[in-house]
């Protein structure tokens, strides 16, 4: 130790040390990506298993079938006769049906406005009081009148009504059962679950007249098909990338495929041969969906309230009928009925790559953390660089006499000579960089406000305008700032240092909340670590110099990866309408509490803007 210490201390002053961080942070990014691509392998992913033993999925005999088929046909007839009617009429008729079964029924009106679009309708719901319970817990069966694709969910609604009638006859329920038929798949469930927890705003949703206990689990049935189906598609993403407990998903899979023999698919992977490629594709689709954080089905609205929920969607042409789907729901409800306490075992953070294969947070989190850490490494490197005295220009006119200069220290008759070089400490000019970083991050509120408060017709043009504005904005800002004060390379290094530090910190925090979003933003922002004057010579107070080629490459790369350009490109690749996508985001912001925009506008965009200012031609 005593021998090593001076060597380490001597290394601290070595200029070569500063050359390492860029490679180190590039290595972090590469390892992060490779890590992610290793996850689908058998060695890194795990078989799913039921962790909560009380669930006992698929252990009960299901009786839904036989004459219930006739009841179902009758209800389906009723539902079809209501197609195209006003939501009020539909809700009134549905609550009549639920009342005739012997349940307490009520309706709830809601009215939301976002991006100039109106989302209104009326939910009908009924409560079946548990014969063996004390009304402190409830499970919910949801069917939306129109499903996520906008098709009328005729078989699904009829099935929910039939199940309500069927459940009423059993005396074994220990939790209340709530049957909820919402007008649409996004606003309706949100209005209902908000009002259930008294979190609704009185202007947009009515309060609920009927309530039951704490919600323990939610199953959504979605069957818009008018024919027999092939397999069940399980949708599980919640708002802001929150996921339901894996036990609920596992129970549904175990019941559907194990007990009923119905195939299960997820993330719209209709054919899944369990190859590496398909696993990876499923996982990446799941990550994109989680990263966007939007509502992927009626179940999404429940998850932020810590209510675990999934959607069962019937897909394809096959030989499974609605009764089989009903039996799945029955068996799942019997399992939920067994729960002794709220879902808490199993996992809340996971990536699924097949219906019975997953990776848990401990295995996948390092990849996002490595991407986030790369920014912190560069921030530390820049900080160290900013504290070094500026190099003197080689071949400059002033002859370097200072190398041999020493300071004479006298005290009490003793004299000591100390080289001044050792004493030189650069006073860091912190104020301007910190103020700029803070100001840029607050500037993010402007696009955030604009995109959440523009009419849908204008949203696409606004985005294109914003994309063009981003081309000139960095140069403009650089000129404005240089007008007030000099942006010396010392200050620019500190500016980039704080910006990267903050970005790394935000992403590391985000990775614990929404892994996928943190990973995707981290990758898109990765070039920010490598632009600027980090690795070039520090000229002290002189204006920064950057190789022309380096500057051009940095600029092109940054402008190709600016947030609006990325949004436009993603919409183009997936064939989505930009205006509609942004309108959905605005809807999510206003109604479902979607917060992806904050990350884009107040974390990614400011960091990008600072990176672009640093390399802009305005300096």
């Amino acid at each position, binding site marked *: 130790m005593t021998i090593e210490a001076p060597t380490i201390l001597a290394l601290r002053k070595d200029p070569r040390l500063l050359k390492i961080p860029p490679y180190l942070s590039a290595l972090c990014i590469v390892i992060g990506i490779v890590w992610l691509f290793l996850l689908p392998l058998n060695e890194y992913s795990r078989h799913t298993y039921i962790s909560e033993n009380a669930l006992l999925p698929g252990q009960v005999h299901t009786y839904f079938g036989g004459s219930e088929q006739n009841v179902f046909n009758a209800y389906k007839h009723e539902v079809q006769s209501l197609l195209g009617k006003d939501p009020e009429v539909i809700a009134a008729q549905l609550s009549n049906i639920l009342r005739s079964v012997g349940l307490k029924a009520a309706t709830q009106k809601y009215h939301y406005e976002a991006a100039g679009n109106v989302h209104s309708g009326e939910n009908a719901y009924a409560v079946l009081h548990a014969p063996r319970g004390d009304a402190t817990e409830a499970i919910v069966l949801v069917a939306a009148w129109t499903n996520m694709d906008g098709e009328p969910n005729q078989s699904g609604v009829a099935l929910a009504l039939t199940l309500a009638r069927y459940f009423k006859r059993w005396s074994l329920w220990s939790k209340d059962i709530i049957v909820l038929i919402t007008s649409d798949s996004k606003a309706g469930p949100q209005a209902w679950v908000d009002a259930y927890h008294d979190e609704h705003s009185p202007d947009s949703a009515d309060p609920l007249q009927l309530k039951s206990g704490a919600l323990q689990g939610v199953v959504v049935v979605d069957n818009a098909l008018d024919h027999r189906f092939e397999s069940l598609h399980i949708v599980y993403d919640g708002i802001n990338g929150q996921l339901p407990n894996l036990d609920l998903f596992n129970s549904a899979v175990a019941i559907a495929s194990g007990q009923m023999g119905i195939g299960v698919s997820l993330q719209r992977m209709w054919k899944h041969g369990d190859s590496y490629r398909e696993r990876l594709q499923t996982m990446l689709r799941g990550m994109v969906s989680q990263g966007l954080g939007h509502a992927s089905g009626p179940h999404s609205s429940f998850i932020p309230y810590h209510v675990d929920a999934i959607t069962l969607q019937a897909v394809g042409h096959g030989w499974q009928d609605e009764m089989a789907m009903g039996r799945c729901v029955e068996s799942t409800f019997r399992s939920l009925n067994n729960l002794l306490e709220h879902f808490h075992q199993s996992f809340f953070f996971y990536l699924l790559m097949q219906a019975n294969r997953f990776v848990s947070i401990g295995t996948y989190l390092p990849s996002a953390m490595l991407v986030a850490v790369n920014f912190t490494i560069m921030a530390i490197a820049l900080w160290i660089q900013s504290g070094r005295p500026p190099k003197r220009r080689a071949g400059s006119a002033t002859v370097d006499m200072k190398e041999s200069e020493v300071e004479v220290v006298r005290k009490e008759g003793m004299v*000591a000579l100390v080289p001044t070089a050792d*004493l030189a400490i650069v006073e860091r000019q912190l104020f301007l960089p910190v103020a700029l970083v803070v100001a840029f991050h607050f500037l993010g509120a402007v696009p955030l406000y604009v995109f959440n408060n523009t009419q849908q017709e204008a949203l696409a043009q606004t985005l294109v305008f914003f994309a063009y504005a981003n081309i000139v904005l960095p140069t403009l800002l650089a000129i404005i700032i240089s007008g007030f004060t000099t942006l010396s390379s010392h200050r620019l290094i500190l500016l980039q240092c704080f910006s990267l530090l903050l970005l790394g910190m935000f992403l590391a925090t985000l990775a614990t909340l929404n892994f996928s979003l943190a990973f995707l933003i981290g990758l898109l922002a990765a070039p920010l670590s490598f632009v600027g004057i980090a690795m070039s010579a520090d000229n002290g107070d002189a204006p920064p110099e950057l190789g022309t080629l380096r500057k051009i490459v940095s600029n092109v790369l940054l402008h190709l990866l600016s947030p609006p350009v990325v949004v436009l490109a993603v919409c183009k690749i997936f064939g989505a309408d930009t205006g509609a996508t942004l309108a959905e985001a605005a809807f999510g912001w206003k109604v479902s509490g979607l917060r992806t925009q904050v990350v884009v506008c107040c974390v990614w965009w400011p960091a990008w803007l600072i990176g672009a200012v640093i390399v802009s031609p305005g300096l």
Partner: protein
Amino acid sequence: MAIDRRKLLLYAAAAALRFLLFLAFPRLPDLLTGRAEISTPVTSFKRLQEGLFLYTHNVSPYDGGVFYQAPLLLPLFALVPPFIFPLATAVLYIFTDLVCAESLIQIAESGVARTSRLFSSPRKDNHWDSLAVGAAFLFNPFTIATCLARPTSVFSNGAILYAIANAVDRKPAKSMLALALAAYLSLYPALLLPPLILLCHDQIVAKDGSKPKLPRSSFELSSIFCGSVAWFLAMSYLLTGQSWEFLRSTYGVHLLLPDLTPNVGLWWYFFIEMFDSFREFFLGVFWLHLMGYVGGLCFRLRTQPLFVLTTIIGILAIFQPYPSIADASLYFALLPLYNHVFSLMRYTFFAMATILYAALLGPAFYYLWIYAGSGNANFFYAITLVWSLGLSIIVGECLFAVLRDEWEVERPEMKGKEVRRI
């Protein structure tokens, strides 16, 4: 007059920012009030309101087992009930913040941090403008968040800073009175008494030619302190219907830690996990540990009592039973006074980055634990450990820097040489 105008501008800006936040985001103060990082059981504004409600309805405020704060706060807030005059309460807190800033500026202007009676730093020329010290306090996000959340620790912070400012200003009686108020409000400032006495003594000796002896002046000053505390307690006794019950619910809670609501400190988790039979023993150990620093620091850093105060405040922000970011903000308020030794600190950036990381991850993990239900208590405790680690690195680093500064006066030939801390 020019300087006064600048100071006025600074105060106006700070007050305006706070008013803006109070008025433009009416839900923000209540949101922050509920945060475990800011409101501890012994300082929470919510609990204060609860106690106030009981008090104004002629019920003993300590009956509910919710209110643990000093009784004298009740008549003060009964004058401006927060639920009737929320703005008046805001004004009270903003005013207290400005008093803190004024005291800080006074301390900074005196230059005691650089040149005290017994020690003069070789780096004394390199220092911040006193207004910058005030601004660093007023615009610190931790201070602003604390002001918005309105915990009563704001008042004890104000009293501590006021006490130091008066000590520096050679008004020992006022200083002792202010410290007595701080100790009365939240007990732990009583640990600041020895270094504050040293500071008062040094300041008086530096001014007067007459040299009062240290034992004599410390006896005088501690009698003033004890007298003031006794007076405050007597007032409280009269106020709570002539009963000493309040002692158990205020200082008893500090000493015996019955309320284990999570906070940023290290005690709550430890005492949740502990077997009951060891509880008394470890309470003793924890308190002894906390008190142990005072004597050692006073002896070692006898020449710089203000720095002893700063360091003890930093240590208290880490190790006291119910710490919050309000205590950390008090430490961060005093740190800029030692700007001249910052260049001797080695891990400032890492420590600050750790603290910022913890400040971001703390609320995220708390959310995962309490609201999303997908995390658990270990998440939050882990991050409070990181927070405490960051703070203790800063305290340790600052101590190292000051000692090194002192050492270079004794051994000028060692200037700029590498040293190792062992």
